[in-house]
Every structure is written in C-alpha cells, then in structure tokens.
C-alpha cells in the first residue's frame, strides 16, 4: 500500500508530493549504484564492531582468547560451540548485573523525568511571558552548555559529605538533573517558539491561567521536543560511567556501567564475559531509541532547523 503510493508520487511530475530532496541524477527517485555501494560499505563498517562483539558474547573463554570472532563465520562448523553461559555468568555471578540493571533504572528515571518538568516550566516562562532580564538569563543558561561536568566533582563531593548524600541514588540523579538542564531548556524553548502564538493568546483571552495554558496547551503540543530530550538524557545518564563512579562507586548501589568495568577488572575473566555484560547494558537504550526515534528527530530538528 505504502509502496504503490510512493511510486506514484515519484512518477508524477509534481515535486511537491514527493519530499523535498536534493538529487543528482535525472530520475530523483532512484539512487545509482555508486550511492548504494557507498552507503552499504559505510553501514557495514558501522556494524562490524557491533557484530564482532555480539558473536564474541556467545563464545567460550578459550575460543575468544585464541581465535578471532570471524572464525565462527569462516568455519561454520564451530557454530555448535556457541553458548549462553556468558550471559548466565554475567547476570547471576558475583558482579550482579541484574541488580545493577535495577539500580540504573532507579538513577535514570528521576534523572530523565525531573529535568523535563523543570525545563518545560522554565522554557514556557522564557517563551510566553515577559519579564525583566529574560534574554540575559536565557543566554546565561545557553552558555552553561560549555561547562564540562567534571568541574563540579570535587566541590559537589564536599557538599554531599556535609549534607550526607554520598553513595545514594539521589546524589547521582541530582547531578544529572542540573547538567541536563541547559540542554533541556535550550531544546524546549526552541521548539516552543515555533508553536502558534495565536492559540496561546486566545487561551489567555478566554481567561486561562498560566498553569492551565501550560498543562492543557503547551505541554501536549511540545511532545516531540519533550521526547527528543528524554531520549538524549536517558541515553546520557544510562551510559554515564564517570558521575556514577565518583558519587556511588562499586558496591550494592552500582549502575550497569560501573558493574561492567568491574567485570572487566575481575581476575581470570576473559573478553567474552565483558561482551555479554556489554550487551546487557546496551539492550534498554537501543530499544528506547528505536521505539522513540520518530519523535527524536522531529523534536530535535524543529528548533535547530529553520523553516
């Protein structure tokens, strides 16, 4: 159904129906063999490291240490030696990846949700209200994007000691909330400024308060931008090693990234175990990304691309 629709669109001379593309050949709908082969080569290069890791995660210690992963493909007879043992050891062994997975969720969920809440309120104020110092404050926030997060490690560590937050989940997610804020406000404000002003004005005329306009109108209309920031922040927090290492460290509260480095360091453990652990850490972000990528692109580009 979709296929016939697109071919028809491509065959008709009206370019408006087909998406606005730049093309190099006479027939814009078709890519030449050069285009195709360049893309295939690029995609293959991009996938090779991942495939190698995936295959290794199913191999035995001996095989992984003595032969390259591609030998499984070159000699298909060795296929039968593949095993699920690495995943069992990684998930149930002394480094408990299962527990780490729960910990990661406990860190990532608040660290994703709370900045969205804070930033959407702030972005609303920056876009739809007038107040003194608005532009200056906004530029101050945007300029905070360039400060690297390791600047704050020592001062905040000292602060946590006084308050007694060290080693807890909030110690990590509070840190991520603050450092995600600049980007969140930036993306959301860019997106909100593309929303039709007239709708918001008429809501105000009808006597809606700021709160009502925010919850009923602006927030639902900003879903693509909210989703795109959520994915960004989710990936960033889930994949973060350093902040977790500094504020929580190895132990019962460790997230998956810390657990993975622990796996790496354990005595007598081969590569195959870290690859299995690596895939456990990758599963959730990849699923989240694939499920939400439609929103991701829409929300991200609305602010950055004019038109």
């Amino acid at each position, binding site marked *: 159904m979709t296929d016939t629709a697109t071919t028809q669109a491509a065959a008709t001379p009206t370019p408006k129906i087909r998406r606005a593309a730049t093309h190099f050949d006479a027939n814009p709908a078709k*890519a030449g063999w050069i285009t195709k082969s360049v893309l295939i080569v690029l995609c293959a290069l991009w996938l090779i490291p991942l495939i190698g890791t995936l295959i290794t995660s199913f191999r035995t210690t001996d095989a992984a240490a003595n032969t390259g992963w591609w030998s499984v493909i070159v000699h298909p007879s060795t296929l039968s030696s593949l095993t699920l043992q690495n995943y069992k050891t990684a998930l149930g062994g002394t480094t408990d990846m299962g527990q780490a997975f729960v910990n990661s969720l406990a860190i990532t969920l608040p660290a994703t949700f709370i900045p969205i809440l804070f930033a959407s309120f702030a972005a609303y104020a920056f876009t739809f209200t007038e107040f003194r110092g608005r532009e200056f404050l906004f530029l101050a926030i945007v300029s905070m994007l360039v400060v690297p997060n390791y600047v704050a490690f020592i001062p905040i560590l000292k602060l946590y000691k006084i308050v007694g937050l060290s080693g807890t989940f909030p110690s990590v997610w509070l840190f991520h909330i603050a450092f995600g804020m600049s980007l969140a406000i930036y993306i959301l404000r860019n997106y909100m400024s593309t929303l039709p002003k007239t709708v918001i004005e008429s809501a105000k005329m009808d006597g809606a308060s700021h709160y009502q306009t925010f919850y009923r109108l602006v927030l639902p209309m900003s879903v693509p931008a909210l989703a795109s920031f959520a994915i960004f922040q989710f990936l960033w927090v889930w994949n973060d090693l350093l902040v977790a290492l500094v504020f929580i460290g190895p132990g019962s509260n460790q997230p998956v990234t810390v657990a993975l480095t622990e796996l790496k360091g354990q005595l007598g453990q081969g590569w195959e175990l870290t690859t299995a652990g690596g895939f456990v850490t990758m599963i959730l972000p990849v699923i989240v990304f694939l499920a939400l990528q439609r929103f991701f692109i829409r929300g991200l580009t609305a602010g950055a691309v004019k038109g």
Partner: protein
Amino acid sequence: MLAKALTALLTVVAGIGAALLLYWVLNWISERLPDNWEHRIKPYLFILPAFLGITVYILYPAILTVINSFKDNFSRNWVGLTNYRTLFDSTYFRGTLFNTLLWILIVPAACVIMGLTVAVLADRLSPRGEKAAKTVIFLPMAVSLVGAATVWRFIYDSEPKGSTQIGLLNALLSIFHKGPVAWLDTSTYHLNSLLLMVILLWIQVGFSMVLLSAAVKGVPVDTLEAARIDGASERQIFALVVIPQIRGTIITVFITVTITVMKIFDIVYVTTGGNFNTDVLGNQFWTQISTFFNYGAASAIVVIFMIAVIPIMWYQVRHFRSEEAA
C-alpha cells in the same frame, strides 16, 4: 533483591513526587499574591528551580575552580600564577594541549562532512532503505563509552608476533604477512590519537546526520528546480544552492560537536589512559586530581579550558541571536 528493588522504586517515586510538589507549592504561593504581583513574580517562580540547580551544580563549582586555580594543591595558600607557569613549562602538558587541538580541528569537521554525505546519499534511497541506513549509522549513539571501548578492542587489539591475532586490523595485516602493529601504542604521526577519534566519530556521526538530513529535506524544491532550468549541474546545485540554505544547521552541528570534543575525556580514559602521547585536557584534569592529588593544577587546567571555550561561546550566542532575528 526484591527489597532493594522496592527501595529503588521508593526513591524514584519520592524524588519525582517532591519535584511535582515543589511546583504545586510555588503556584500556591503566587496565587496568594495580589494580582499585579502575581503576573510579575510568576515567570521568575517558573524558572527558579532550574536556576537553583544550575547555580549549585555548575556556577558555584565553576567559580570555586577559578579561585582554587590560584591556590596550592590542597587549596590552602595562595600561590599566584604558579600552577599555570608549571603547566605551560612542562612539555607533557604542551603535548596534551596539542592533542586536544588536533581533536578540535579534526573531529567536528569530519563529523559534519560524514553526516552530510550520509544524509544526502540516503535521501536518494527508497524510504525504507533510507530508514534502515540511518538507523544503522545512528545506532552507536545508544552505546556507552565503556561499551564502545569493549567493542573497539576487537578492532584494535594486538597480540605478540607469531600468535593468532584476534583484533581485526592486525588479522587483516597478517594475511599479507605484515605486522602486528600495536595500534594504540603507536604515536607516530599521532596515529593512536586518530584511531581514538574514529571511535568518537563512530558514535557522533549519527547525530550530525539526523540534523543535517532534516535541513537538506527542508530546502525548497522550487529553488532547486530554478537552478536546474538555468542549466546548473547537480554538483553546482549542491554547492551553490543547497549548502548556503543549510548553513545555519551546519554551524549548529559544528558548534555542538566542538563542545563535545573539547570536553572529551571518557574515550581516552578507558582506552589508553592518556599514555603513548594521547592525553587530552579532560583526562589530564582527572589525572591531576586522582593520581597527583593536585587540586590547584587541576583547577588551572579547567580555567584554561574555559578561556579557550569563550570564543566558541561568543560565536554561539551571536549565531543564536541571528537565528532569532531571522
């Protein structure tokens, strides 16, 4: 296990609940105020929590860092410019600065060029093919840097001469009876730094591709048609019609990637740890703190970094303003 999971759940609920409550209280306060005050105060209340977070976690540490860069290693006594002088006098640190500069010069440009190439080429595929190609290129964005380091070990690994190579590059070399090359130990022509940059490109090209692809699709078809009628070749159209129209996005991507690259730390930390002349500012900062316990020098490094960032920041603000005006 279950008890742990429950405590985790409880912290999550409590944290999110507290955040929601905060706004409810702020709103409650503002509604108690007289009408004209409510309108004046409310925007500030809306941005207050965000600003509080930024002040405590970014502004306060940044200011403290500037002050401590003029103090000794435990931040007790004032030492003037000693930290800066020691840093610039050491050849190692100058090497670190040069490496960081290499990253800044190469990665953002390469990222934009590769992203644009994929975006333009994939645009000509069928919608299904385009989606598949883009997903593959974007996929590494979801991989953590620890994960990426694990993944790339299977490419860069080197075993002693004579034994079977399990790293892909050396295995390829051994087919031609060459090698093995210890890729990440070789600093001739900064080979190892370049190889580390490849890892970052692997992760970042997807990001630049997504933004640039949307910009390319946004170029109005009539401008392309007009150029075609005037007899421009497809290459001319790309260089003279498409590129100028997506300039804004190119700058946005370029600045974003540049800032990421300046802050780069993890890739170097988990692969070479800064050895073999691959050190960069971010990793050097961490070494000064965790190995040498020299907080003064570490702070000075951050200040050097922040000064280097000012031109980019200035450019970004100016670019942002012109976008606003347009």
